[in-house]
Each structure stands twice: as C-alpha cells, then as structure tokens.
C-alpha cells in the first residue's frame, strides 16, 4: 500500500511538462489531482519512473463561463466547477454529475482533465464531454490540436492522446434556447463508481417539439456512450411519455454493458433504460415542456 519509488518533476509551465515528457518518454506519467493515479501507485498497478506534476502550472486550473461556453483548464478542480456561479442555472446536468464524483474531499483535489484522460468508462466527466460535444485541446511540442470528445475516448482507460501530448484545455459549448438537463446514476453506495448513469439534455422549440437531444451514458461499455439512435428517436417529436419511453428503449440497443461482481450486463442495460427515461423526463420538465405543455 505504499507507492514504489519514482522521480518527481514539479512543472510550472506546460512547456516544462512537455520537456519532462520528451526527456522521460513513456516512463513518465502526468499527475493532476491524483485521486485516481495515487491509488494506482499505492496498489502498484501504475509504476512510472517519473511523475510530472501539473498542479503548479500557472493558469491551467481556470474555470469560467465565456459566451455560453464552459472553458476549463485541465487542472480545474471538480469542486470549483461544481460551485461555479451561474453554471447550475445554465446546465444543471454538469453540476448534478459532479455531485456524484466521490466525495467533497475528492472533488477538492480531483481535476476535470485528470478525469477525462483517465477515461474510466464509469466516470462522469467523459459522459458530459461526449454528450455536450466538448472540444479538448492537446498540446505537444508539435503544437496544439483540438480533439472532439467523441474521438477522444478509445476504450477502457485509453484515449487518443499521444504520449507526448498534454491535455490543456476543455471547451464545453452549452446548448442555447429553451432547454433543460439532468444527470442520474445508480451506485451501490454514495460516491462509489456508477453501475450505470445517464446525462440528458433537451432543447425544445416554441411548440414543445424536441429540437436537440443529447444523451451520454456511463458504466455501460468500454467508453462513455453517446446514444445517437435514442436521440434521433426523440428529435422532432413532442417528448411526451410515450416518446420518451421509446427513446429509452432505443438506448438498450446502443450499449454493450458487461457484467461483473457489482451488476450483471442485463441489469446494467435495464438501469440504462430506466435512468434514461427518468433523466429525459426531468430534462423536459426543466425545459418547461412534456406532459404539462402537451396538455396545454
């Protein structure tokens, strides 16, 4: 339960971090909040020869709403984003999802970028990123490229980042208009990894038709899942009970959950449909639509 020996570089700029990566290659590992990496070190499941600490990189931990886009530095703390003024009013699913991440002491240290690059398929940030079409900036000595969230997640704990790249910035465009969102998940205990979870965002037209639907799921595959089939099933329709139920059923065909000691594959699929129905219903209600609007 003690980490093996390693070297340590406290980077004060992205350039210093890139220099350290260039020097140590794949023997180096970037350290952000450490809430996943340090346990892996303690279990000796990760054995890097050098840790490159990003916590001292000036200006990398920013979090702000800029013209309807949530702009985050890679080391923005989850707790900072959770409490960002105006964010809950603008996009409730983000704040609701963060509240499921571990506990306050974890979120005080844990970073958005760390969660994204760790790419645990049961983690919340990856699903938020794919549901909201976040853009991720990857910086290397070759320059900075922008990776769409849906191309970022490859498989379990695997992203499309190259070994010489550092995730530096995340931009989450927040949908405009008459919209609502919700994030629901089920875990055995509060703060544990989700058995399954769903983030839903719905935008309605003036007559209550769903014009834009976003669904991101966790815990049901080797990476976060964007349920585009279920989204299409709902788009252009009044999201009444029947339409929402159909979309939720469509989710079952878009996921390939695996069973483990915590839940069987069938149970996870069942949870995904139930949680999708509830999350979409809540999102529609928050957008001021659904059963009430349909009856009007």
């Amino acid at each position, binding site marked *: 339960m*003690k980490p093996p020996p390693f070297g340590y570089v406290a980077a004060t700029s992205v350039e210093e971090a890139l220099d350290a990566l260039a020097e140590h290659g794949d023997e180096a590992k970037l350290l952000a909040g450490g809430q996943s990496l340090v346990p892996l070190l303690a279990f000796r499941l990760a054995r890097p020869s050098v840790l490159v600490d990003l916590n001292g990189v000036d200006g990398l931990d920013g979090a702000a709403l800029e013209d309807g886009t949530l702009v985050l530095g890679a080391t923005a703390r989850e707790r900072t984003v959770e409490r960002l003024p105006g964010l809950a009013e603008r996009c409730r699913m983000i704040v609701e999802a963060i509240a499921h991440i571990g506990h*306050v002491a974890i979120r005080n240290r844990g970073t958005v970028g760390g969660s994204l690059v760790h790419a645990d398929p049961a983690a919340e940030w990856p699903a938020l990123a794919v549901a909201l079409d976040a853009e991720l900036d990857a910086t290397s000595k070759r320059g900075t490229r922008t990776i769409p969230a849906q191309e970022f997640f490859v498989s379990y704990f695997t992203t499309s980042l190259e070994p010489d790249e550092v995730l530096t910035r995340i931009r989450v465009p927040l949908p405009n208009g008459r919209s609502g969102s919700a994030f629901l998940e089920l875990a055995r205990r509060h703060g544990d990894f989700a058995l399954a979870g769903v983030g839903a965002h719905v935008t309605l037209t003036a007559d209550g038709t769903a014009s834009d639907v976003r669904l991101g799921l966790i815990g049901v595959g080797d990476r976060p899942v964007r349920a585009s089939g279920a989204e299409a099933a709902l788009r252009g329709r009044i999201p009444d009970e029947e339409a929402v139920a159909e979309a939720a059923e469509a989710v079952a065909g878009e996921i390939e959950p695996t069973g483990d000691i915590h839940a069987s594959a069938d149970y996870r699929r069942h949870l995904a449909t139930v949680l999708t129905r509830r999350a979409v219903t809540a999102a529609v209600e928050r957008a001021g639509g659904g059963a009430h609007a349909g009856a009007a």
Partner: protein
Amino acid sequence: MRERRELALRVNGEDRRGSAEPRTTLADFLRDELGLTGTHLGCEHGVCGACTILVDGRSARSCLMLAVQAEGHELTTVEGLAPADGPLHPIQEAFAEKHGLQCGFCTPGFLLSVHELLAENPDPDENEIRERLSGNICRCTGYHNIVQSVLYAAELLRSAPVA
C-alpha cells in the same frame, strides 16, 4: 540511494520543514517526519477518509497527496483544531458530549470534514450532514451519534463562533 526533497510548509499555523522521498504520501510525512500522529491511515487509497486534513482550508485525503506537493501550502490537521493545553474545539466537544466516537480511529478525519462543512454552512440539515460525511467511514458507531454530534457542533458554533 533514493532522492529526498527538502520541504517547507505551514502546518497548524507553524512553519515546518522536513524531507521526503517523492513517493512519500503527505499522510506518512505528517506522521513519520513531523510526528503529527493524529492523522490516521486506514485504507491508504482514498476510500476510508480517516486521513482527511485541510489543505489551504479545503478537505483533502492526505494519503492521496504526495508530501512534495504540500511544499508552500498551509495545512490543518486534527492537532490544529485546539491548543494542546486548552479547551477542545466545539466540534470536538460536541463529539465527546454526543458520543460521536467509540474507538476514535476515524474521528480525526470526521472532525476535519465537519470543520469544512460547518464553515460553508453553519446550519446543515441531517441529509446534508449524512451526504457530506459519506466519504468518512466509521465501523463502530453506526453514524447516528456522529450526525447528532454535528448538529450539536453547529449549534455550539452558532452561539459562540471560533476564529
């Protein structure tokens, strides 16, 4: 020969120095290098909450930070809640009064988590208390008396705030 780093940090209002290998957790540094053994280690991988301290005023698992990361930061451990020869902090007093501990192993982590909670919200309801303390595991009490202790601590602090 393993490299050791010199560290300077502030702990419980005092400037402290010490040295640590990069792999040494902040929890082990506090206990073994600074002699502050009030910070307890249960699981050593961020699950049990016993090692919770405040880093720059915010709760953190000291087993999930490296000692070298604390350079220049300000920490509060359980030893910093009340003077060694003075009265208990109201949160400690409340835990003693309401039987919020039995063996006491998990208590330092609870006290610091509660300290952060009550600084943010001086009047939390029972649900908020239970959710906030869900990251601190106690195997003795069943939590009922811990929740009662926090409600009582909040009451004490509202009537006589501590700086």
